[in-house]
């Protein structure tokens, strides 16, 4: 009796394998639907995940660059504001002092000298400005106030003047004091190091190299200080000499306009670069995020459709299994 028969176990085996397979598909699809992400991105990319990894890393770095670039632009804005203020003071001083000369009256000269002293004091205050404890004009020594009190500086300058009655000596002493190596350098607690901040990939950086020790700042301070020194010397100088010196101070302030403008344009240039970089970083961030989403996220509609189909398949499979198990010769004998 060689009949072809099919063992019972083979039917059960196939049936249980199928149930397991459909159920694991169901589990995977519902996980994908609820998390919104593909279950296995690596398999989706066939294992070549280098570009995807590079994109995630770029995104993290871009976010950090955006934060830093914003911080740097705030600092630059504060420095630019201070330079504007210094320029205003310079212009006011220039307008006031240039009108005086050796033949002006004493009251005019005295009031001019007093204004010069105040302007010098104001300029020092602007240069000593800070935001949240960080000084703008100290170079990299940001926790240290760059300049001492205006009065102390004038006293120090007076100390270097051998003969306060000689206008030539006074002029030269002020010039020397503000030159490199003079008393200004000694009393300055900051430094002239440039502050470089990396704000973008490939080493793109913003540079803040304006400090109280910059040549242009020295120039405008020297011009103002001359007026303040004249006020401090007072009666030791002849009235006509005082008038002449105040006029020289005014002329110096007019001449220093170019320097201050140069500083403002340097900072302005850096500000513009930071703005451009921020715009580029923003665009780059958006496109990176979009590409990452495209790779990682699953399409909810497609997954929902497949889930429906799998559910139906499982129901059909259960119905078939039930029907087949009821078909047995034993029921009919």
């Amino acid at each position, binding site marked *: *009796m060689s*009949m072809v*028969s*099919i*063992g*019972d*176990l*083979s039917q059960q*085996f*196939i049936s249980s*394998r199928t149930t397991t397979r459909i159920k694991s598909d169901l589990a995977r699809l519902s996980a994908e639907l609820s998390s919104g992400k593909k279950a296995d*991105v*690596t*398999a989706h*990319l*066939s*294992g*070549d*995940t*280098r570009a*995807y*990894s*590079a994109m*995630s*890393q770029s995104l*993290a*770095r871009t*976010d*950090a*660059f955006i*934060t*830093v670039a914003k*911080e*740097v632009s705030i600092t630059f804005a504060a420095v630019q504001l201070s330079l504007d203020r210094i320029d205003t003071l310079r212009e006011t001083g220039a307008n006031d002092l240039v009108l005086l000369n050796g033949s002006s009256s004493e009251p005019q000269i005295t009031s001019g000298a007093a204004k010069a002293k105040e302007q010098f004091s104001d300029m020092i205050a602007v240069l000593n400005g800070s935001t949240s404890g*960080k000084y703008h004009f*100290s*170079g*990299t*020594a*940001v*926790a240290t106030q760059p300049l001492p009190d205006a009065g102390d500086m004038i006293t120090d300058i007076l100390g270097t003047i051998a003969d306060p009655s000689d206008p030539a000596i006074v002029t030269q002493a002020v010039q020397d004091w503000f030159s490199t190596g003079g008393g200004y350098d000694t009393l300055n607690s900051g*430094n002239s*190091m440039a*502050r*470089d*901040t*990396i*704000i973008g990939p490939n*080493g793109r*950086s913003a540079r803040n190299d304006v400090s109280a020790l910059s040549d242009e700042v020295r120039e405008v301070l020297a011009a103002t200080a001359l007026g303040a020194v004249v006020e401090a010397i007072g009666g030791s100088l002849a009235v006509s000499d005082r008038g002449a010196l105040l006029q020289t101070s005014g002329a110096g302030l007019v001449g220093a306009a170019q320097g201050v403008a140069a500083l403002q344009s340097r900072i302005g240039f850096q500000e513009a670069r930071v703005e451009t970089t921020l715009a580029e970083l923003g665009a780059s961030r958006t496109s990176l995020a979009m590409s*990452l989403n495209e790779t*990682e996220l699953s399409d909810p509609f497609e997954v929902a459709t497949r889930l429906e189909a799998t559910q139906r398949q499982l129901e059909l499979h259960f119905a078939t299994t039930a029907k087949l198990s009821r078909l*047995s*010769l*034993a029921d009919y*004998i």
Partner: protein
Amino acid sequence: MGISTSLSTALSGLNVASRMAEVTSNNIANTLTEGYARRSLAIGSTWGGVPSFGVQRHVSPGLTADRRLADAQLSADQGRMAMLTRVEDIIGAAGSTDSIAGRLAAFESALISASGEPSSDLRLMQLNGTLSELADEINSASSEIQALRQNADASIAQDVARLNAGLGMIAQLNADITRVQTAGQDASNLIDARGQAMDGISDIVPLRILQRGGDQIALMSTSGMILLDGVPSEFEFQPANVIAADMTLASGGLSGITRDGMPVDPGDGIGRLMGGSLGAAMAARDDELPTVQDQLDAFALNLMQRFEDPSVDPTTAGLGLLTDAGNPSDPSDFVGLAGRLRLNASVDPVQGGDLWRWRDGLGAAAAGPIGNANQLNRWQEGLSMATALPGGGTPRSSAGHIASLMAERGTLRTIAEQDLSFARARMDGLEQAELAHGVDSDQELQRLLQIEQAYAANARVIQTINSMMQQLMEI
């Protein structure tokens, strides 16, 4: 005489019918038994009766042998897949933040942020935090790889023990079958049991079955090592208590499989026993996992060297931000470096270092101006500059190297997944075909009906002959 011959013929028919009923009921009772071969009674025809030639087992030896080989392949692929999946998790799947790549990205972001505000102690402390987390992640990856090697070693020991036990049982069953057959009994159940024992060890080593006379078998691995021929082979294996990165078979730190004290293969420790789960575990322990460890070590060395480069930190005297347990890197010997990576204590205030060294360099004599971001910028560049791993290869940034390693592991895993699903499909197909030769309860019931009929007919014949004899007696 005619009538008594008919009686004995009818009796033999009855006997055969009842024996067939016994076989059929045995079959139906064993419908759910895996490894049970469908039995039938072999009967002949002679004048004067029905001789039965014993119980026949219906098997398809070719299918069974193929299925056992597929079992070994499936087991090996499963082992390999599990290992590769774990390694992918350890190194980090693409896109996850809790991975070596994620921690490296966090450290780079912290560097960028600190460069924007170098006077902030908070941001410098953040650098310490993120860099030591990176070092920790690399350390734990290394120790987890060694733990996987430990698991592989333990599973080799288990498999060898199972193999020995299985071979012993098969040898025992061989002897029992001979004994039972010599006594004239039916040894089908023992043969089934022997088949089940072979199924028990077919996943360890791929088996080739050699028929010896009288229902005896010998076992051999498909690569040619005799496992059982009359006498079972006994294999030995010494598991290691703890496995470190520098312990290998070649160095003598780990053992291979031996038989009667002689190694089966001094080169790879397994020789001609490979192809099943035993081979996969051995390959994992001695080949694949040490490769991953080497790749991790190379990445760690490359990272250390970036920080030790004088163009990145001019003040350093050889020690960089990351140390080899306090020492500088040694390109000639960096096995297990990934497990020894530490943050340089001189930048960590908790370990007695100074935060300002982040700004001024590791070997700086004194703290400099607190707004100076130049050294922080140089460390950023150090991480992005393209250098090659020790041993050559494409120069990449540090992030590029780890992404490359992750991509390689991901590709290996997806390929192994495909291999596994193929092996599973093949195994399923063969198993189903083999089970199709099993007991079909509908067929058995049908046969039972026929046996019932035959029994009834034979009984009727006996009744008729009996009544004929009675009639004879009444004369």
